[in-house]
């Protein structure tokens, strides 16, 4: 099975509730979060401008480039749900490694804190929540119901097969587990 996110770009106001809910749940410091908001995409000219937002967390790719790049095999894709997780005991830390994972990810998702030799950190699909059959915390925090989560095949059956959105290019190489409703012009 492969768990995945769904993102409805036509509903996202860029409010960042998903991001702050994530930081709050994991008690993170100011700075990076596991969920990455929110790219603001602006283009075209007055009086017909275009505006959209994009929020992504780790995309739990079907072929995670980060895992392949890790020199210590600290990044593992779980068989039972396809969630990519990092074993911090094995991670060398940012001072002792060229952060191959971050370089390899087409979306720049793997992240390192500001502390000395910080270990890699990223979204683990809220495994604790998943164990209780609950959604990741970001999904249930979205006031506009722009996020959903579940097995990729079920999300595809529900929302369709669109794998691109404004500001997001699908990587054929890593096959990110996300379905979109893009905001068209």
């Amino acid at each position, binding site marked *: 099975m492969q768990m995945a996110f769904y993102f409805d770009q036509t509903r996202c106001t860029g409010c960042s*509730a998903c991001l702050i*809910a994530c930081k709050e749940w994991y008690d993170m410091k100011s700075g990076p979060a596991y969920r990455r908001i929110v790219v603001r995409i602006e283009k075209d000219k*007055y*009086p017909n401008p*275009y505006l959209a937002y994009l929020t992504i967390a780790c995309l739990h790719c079907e072929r995670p480039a980060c895992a392949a790049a890790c020199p210590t095999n600290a990044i593992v894709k779980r068989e039972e749900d396809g969630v990519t997780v990092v074993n911090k005991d094995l991670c060398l830390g940012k001072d002792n490694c060229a952060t191959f994972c971050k370089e390899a990810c087409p979306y720049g998702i793997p992240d390192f804190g500001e502390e000395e030799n910080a270990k890699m950190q990223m979204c683990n699909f809220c495994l604790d929540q998943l164990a209780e059959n609950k959604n990741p*915390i970001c999904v249930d*925090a979205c*006031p506009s119901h722009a996020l959903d989560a579940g097995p990729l095949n079920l999300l595809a059956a529900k929302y369709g097969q669109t794998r691109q959105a404004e500001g997001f290019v699908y990587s054929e190489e890593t096959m990110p587990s996300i379905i979109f409703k893009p905001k068209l012009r």
Partner: protein
Amino acid sequence: MTNLQGQDNASSIVQKVPITCPHDCGGQCLMWAHVKDGVIVRIESEPGDEPPARACARGLASRKRVYAPDRIKYTMKRVGERGEGKFERISWDEALDKIAAEMKRIKAQYGPGAFVNLQYAGEPLGSFQGIAVGRLMNMFGGNVQHWGGASLEGKYWAALATFGDRWAALGSGDARSARLLILWGRNPAITRGGNNPEGDSNPFFLSQAKEAGTRIVCIDPRYTETVALYADQWVPIIPGTDTAMLIAMAYVIINENLQDQKFLDEYTVGFDKFKEYVLGKEDGIPKTPAWAEVITSVPAATITGLAREYATTKTAMLIDGWGPGRTAYGEQYFRAAYTLKAMTSNISPSEMTVRARPFRGAGYLFSKGKNPFDFDPQAPADVGQSLDPALKNRRRVVQGNLYDAMMRGKDGGYPSDIKMAWVNGGNTLNQFANTNKGVKAFKQLDFIVVTEQFMTPTAKFADILLPATTHLERSGVYTGGGRLFYSEKAIEPLFEAKSDFQICAALAPRLGIENYDGGKTEEELLKDYLTSPDMKKWITDYDAFKKRGVWEWSASQPQAGKVVLPTSSGKIEIYSQKVADLKNPEIPPIPKYMETWENRNDPLTKKYPLQLITSHFRLRAHSVFDNVAWLKDLEPQRVWVNTADARSRGIQDGDLVRVFNDRGVVLIPAYVTERIMPGVVNLCEGAWYNPDKDGVDRGGCPNVLTKDKNSPAGAWCTHTSLVQVVKV
């Protein structure tokens, strides 16, 4: 605490406590505080869908305020100059003794009109806090009140003139029921960030309406998130000219005979007089779409098309946002919108009656009592329900004049000499217009008390600074839309903080006031109130309400059959005889377009060619949350400048620019964008005033630039200012 939910690592129990926010963003959401060993370890948004009450980023960041290292922890007295922010710790007893001594001295020397309570929108929505100081001052002999509030004074006046009650015309219904939705100066995607219950401006409801095929039109000088997400059509409009467009729409409807004449005949008075004005029989100027195009910059064809569409679509909903009303003559905008709704029978008189509800807004759980200073033998008992600003100004001060009143007092024609201000739940200097004038006024006062959680720009001016609890350190009940929220005390007060109620209850005996608190604690008063026979009508199960944190009540149904409104005629008054009796050409009896001050034709544009608007910012609730790093990380304070205006000034995106006029100077980076119309700049309200040694604000507080003058009938005017922007 209630709701024992489970165990965390076997030793400590995590309790989940229902909470909400008290910050007056306009929404009201439900969250759960996870409390372990007396500490809030997490805040979780209400995950459910029914009722939709999911919180925004601000609410979810509340723990960062409660446990912030920069909380004001102790009572303090000022040791430096006012505004310097130098304080020294003192005891609660010393602070309260000092306040009592000063209040007694000032009352003896100048009378009760020397006191002003600057309670405002920071944390006002709770059960008691909003009125605690007001009650104390009233029991001590009174204080001079201020009127003409920021949010929607123009709307209050217009609703009073048109429907006979200030509180009428709040909320337009469920957006999902409309086929055509006109969001006029309304930006709920930002201003109602959480999943708040108001049907006409819940972002989730707007998404659902759009997906169901509702046509949505947005009228706004900015291409907001609301426009980007929901609008089929964006109509940019010059700030301060909305009324002209509404009146030109009325022209089209009249000219093409599209109005619902039967409705007008049955339910309204004065349409003929309005019609004469619109057709130009009164002043020789027909208010055609071509006339409005020159004023508003909206093409005549757009106005004509929208007018026809609005008049012929059922159901069409015109949601008159509050921003366009925060301009000079802003009350006319609401009057014009109501008239257009009546012409197309998109309102019914029964909807405009003020229906019974548990309580409204802030502090209604105990009585503020009578204000002896406010008593005027020539004024009606409730001067707030008067259309006459002159009558209100006999014993009160309109907010735009507050600083002038502080500096000039009775000699300036004001009702009293103001000597002492008590600021609670507010950040006056930051949020009232003309900050630099406010600084001068505050420096002239005899005595200033500030109750605060943080060292805000206003707190720096306190003589005595009192540490206030946050809402998570006390219980309270809040109202939003058709719901009540129970926000339970999650933790004990931190440091030496006390609630406004506790502070005033401790001060009362020192002032010789008996029975301030009725011998009860807040918790006891809250329970008494919520379980009183009166409230049982609304909350049938108090325990269930406390456990769930939210309670849906239904306002009494609109009256069936013929409805008599509390206007003189009993009908919707497009023409108001009471307003006509004021004989003030700036407050006309029918809705009229009048050119604002500091408009695009003002000679002042030679110096200051850009119109400044001061919209809301999604990562602050007014000035609350501006000191939370989690939120600051997401988006910096910047001034919006249109690409063409930036190009002609050599400004690139991110450049530091100087925004200025005769009132002040702000130094802030530019956000160069196609999302705002040329000639308009936007600096979001709420950023903290941070003057350097030359008095240049480096925090980006727009009120350094706004004019301290209310509209003739009271509307707040912070979207009516001219500025210049130059590259530093």
